[in-house]
């Protein structure tokens, strides 16, 4: 949400955006994200997001793979969206 709510970004974005990011913490965990958001001039949007995270705790290893896709339609004063997501968590 901050991406959308960022006042500084209002008026400077475009019909497509691609992003990637990484997060690390002090518990030997990391996470990598990748995604894109496309929008046609008629307000039809497509979002595709994915992430992979892994945590190497002392007694437990956890990893998670996440994928999300969504189609949206902006009608002006309102909008609709439908999406699907898949998550696989693994522990060892």
């Amino acid at each position, binding site marked *: *949400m901050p991406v959308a709510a960022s006042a500084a970004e209002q008026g400077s974005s475009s*019909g497509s*955006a691609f992003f990637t990011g*990484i997060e690390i913490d002090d518990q030997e965990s990391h996470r990598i*994200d990748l995604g894109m958001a496309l*929008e046609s001039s008629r307000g039809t949007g497509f979002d595709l997001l994915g992430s992979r995270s892994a*945590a190497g705790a002392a007694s437990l290893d956890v990893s998670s793979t996440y994928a*999300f896709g969504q189609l949206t339609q902006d009608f002006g004063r309102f909008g609709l969206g439908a999406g699907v*997501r898949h998550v*696989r968590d693994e522990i060892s």
Partner: protein
Amino acid sequence: MGYLGSAFVDFPAARVTASVETRSTDFDETSFTASGAELGLTGISSASGVATCSVDSLGYGLGLSVVRPTFSFYASGTKFDYSSYDCTATVTSTTSGSTTSPVSPGGRAPIHVTLPAAVTQLASNVTTRFGGYSSTRVPREGALLDSSVMVGASFALTARNTLGVELYHDSEEFAQSDTTTALAYLAFPLTRSVSMNVTAGASESDVLKNTVFAGVKLTGRSLAERGCGARHGARLFLATFSQPRTEWYV
């Protein structure tokens, strides 16, 4: 696998977003020990074996955002209803009184268990091991949450630099664990088409050590269609509603 439907309505002062998600979660096969009563077995004190369980849930989300030229405020919450529980349990040994007897192969058909308490017990080896990992090491959508709420605000430091703060609280359904996460981020342009978002924060969990984290995100935007930023921003809000924080902090 989850299927999400969402909608937003714009009012003069704010945008309201709503979402509904159905989700089916399958657990890997896990060993269990349960009482005969929990499994519906008469004349047996307890039974051990392996179980394959699944749970279906519905998530209801509501969000609010207010965007002004120099600041924004946003909040959202999602409540999950676990309506369908299911386990297929294969008993490998039973105890009657103090005597434990192995069940011969083919001697007992798998048991179908649908009582929430019994399913929770059978799947506990899987579900409790994830306790506290929500939001810090596993995306919220990968955790079996009871509820998740967040509030945030961002402020325009300059024409192109933004400072934001956010607070999350997640309650897990099976692990009886709560996690609170606070973070701050700074967004600024690197080039004309690439911006950077730097985030730092901390999570406090009931069952895990407190975690301090930092992240960086690079976002590239097409310059071919400048001028539709408000619409694009609105759609990103819709897309990221109820998403893991790292998708956007990033």
